[in-house]
């Protein structure tokens, strides 16, 4: 049995594979880097599969918190793991967009699923999940409702600022000027999509484009991204676990090789 753990800034994910590469179980816990989240998610994924720790032949950890998690046999970056996981699920994928809490990444794959090139956001939080959280807070809306709110928009407003702090004051003054919340929400999604599209532009976009990571569940971001990069964006069934799946695949290879 092979375990992959993906410790992000806001969530911890785990996947267990058997030696025929079937997914036995997966788990997502809403606690990120630290000790609690990773432990909980590993415990959950083991119990779902009805396994105990000793039955794991090899484990790989990935994600933002991979350096601090000591229990895995090996650590590999989320770039490689998202690539591996995505390619496994969708061999036609050539471009992966992964928007996480802290980072946004664009990864290009070759025909064999190897990473050809990748780009990550700079220090600025615009274009990441963090930006959407700030926007949700201003709009007094739960983060998972932001997309729904945005779908009700009647017109498209522009949030022009790159800087999250600036964007915050821009949005506040737009609300004060009577702009509707749903229109602002739509603008926020578009702003994120624009930043990520800019990132993608740096290394080029080649279809099929696949989106992974938690933000992929947000339909408004996906729609806006499709508009910006002018390509269809496929969202995998459980986009959050793709990194952990890739890690588990690596774990399998370590033994198999």
């Amino acid at each position, binding site marked *: 049995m092979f375990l992959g753990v993906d410790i992000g800034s806001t969530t911890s994910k785990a996947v267990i594979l058997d030696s025929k590469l079937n997914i036995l179980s997966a788990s997502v816990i809403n606690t990120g880097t630290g000790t609690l989240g990773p432990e909980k998610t590993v415990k959950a994924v083991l119990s779902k599969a009805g396994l105990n720790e000793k039955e794991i032949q090899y484990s790989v950890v990935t994600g*933002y918190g991979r*350096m601090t998690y000591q229990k895995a046999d090996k650590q*590999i*970056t*989320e*770039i*490689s793991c998202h690539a591996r996981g995505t390619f496994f699920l969708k061999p036609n994928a050539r471009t992966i967009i992964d928007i996480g809490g*802290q*980072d946004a990444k664009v990864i290009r794959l070759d025909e064999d699923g*190897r*990473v*050809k*090139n*990748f*780009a*990550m956001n*700079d*220090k600025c939080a615009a274009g990441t999940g963090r930006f959407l959280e700030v926007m949700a807070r201003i709009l007094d809306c739960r983060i998972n409702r932001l997309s729904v709110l945005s779908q009700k928009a009647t017109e498209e407003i522009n949030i022009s600022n790159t800087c999250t702090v600036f964007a915050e004051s821009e949005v506040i003054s737009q609300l004060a000027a009577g702009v509707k919340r749903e229109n602002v929400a739509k603008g926020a999604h578009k702003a994120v999509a624009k930043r990520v599209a800019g990132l993608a532009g740096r290394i080029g976009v080649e279809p099929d484009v696949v989106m992974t990571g938690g933000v992929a569940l947000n339909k408004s971001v996906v729609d806006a991204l499709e508009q910006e990069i002018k390509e269809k964006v496929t969202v995998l069934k459980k986009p959050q676990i793709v990194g952990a799946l890739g890690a588990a695949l690596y774990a399998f290879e370590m033994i198999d090789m």
Partner: protein
Amino acid sequence: MNRIEEIIAIMEDVSRYPAKAIRESMEETGKEVIGCFPLYTPEEIVYAAGMIPVGLWGGQKEIKKADKYLQSFCCSIMKENMEHGMEGSYEFLSAIIIPAYCDTLKCVCENWKAAVPDIPLIAMVYPQNRKITAGVEYLVNEYKRVKDELEKISGKKITEKELEESIDLYEEYRKTMSQFVAIASKYPRTIDAKKRHSIIKAAYFTDKKWYIPLIKELTTELNMLPEEAFNGIKVIATGILAEPEVLLDTLVQNNITFAADDLAHESRQFRTGVSNSGTPLERLALRIAGNQKCALLYDEEKTRGQLLLDLVKEYKADGVVVFMMKFCDPEEFDYPIYKKELEAAKIPMLYLEIEQKMDSVEQIRTRIQSFKEMLTV
């Protein structure tokens, strides 16, 4: 500890504690010290004046005082230098030389007058049209001005002979360093990316007369060893400088080594020699005229991409690592041009946006590790 390890340890000590090294040099030689801002300053003239030139390339201080003069989007080397100056950590300097290669340097030089009035400033400008006669003449005049200022500080005239001797010493330094980096590339484990950096950096804080023999000895000792097998990744480093050190640690951890570099702080300092004809100051001016492929020297052909391609080929490197000093306009403008050229040649590239003091290096660690995984998987 063998001799190689000994010399490396000495150099690492100098690089880690520059102030201590400088004070020791001052005590041993009895010489005064002149601070030299990036990128190129006429160190030869300083040395001929009987003083030691030391390089001021920032540091890792938390920025507090420099914010009085510089906005947040100023390059960190200049912010660090301002901070150090205002903090008093440059108090042992008899003067500083600031050359105006870029817009930020122009402004820092002007602010220095108000911010650090106790350390005399020698401002100078290097011509960008440096190859035409008028440009060479202008630079000779600037050098003369610097020479006059230094003579005022030291209280004695610099003779032609002293200048010639100083130029000879610096030529020896440049040759020694070129040999060292060429040999070092064959010993990637003994001279890893971090050690290489420390050894080259130590030159900025010591008397060249002390430094050169040690590097020669190190090079000779290395040369006697068999070439080291290496199964990691060999890269060409480009940019202003390869810091903070934690980046180098991460590179070493990931088995990535520098086959050669195009860093302003390292090889760009010594890869071009002086001209043999003319007066001493003309020889120095012609050295700048012949200096190419640096983001801060006008180059309408933009030959830097070709230089990187040549280095990759010559050293059979696996890729190029870009140390992009955040807010460095000249470097940021060069990037899209050589990026395109490297991409066309299918050379893998790792882009690291850096500041001298970085609060979080996690993302950079991920980038470095991913780069390694990309090339080895």
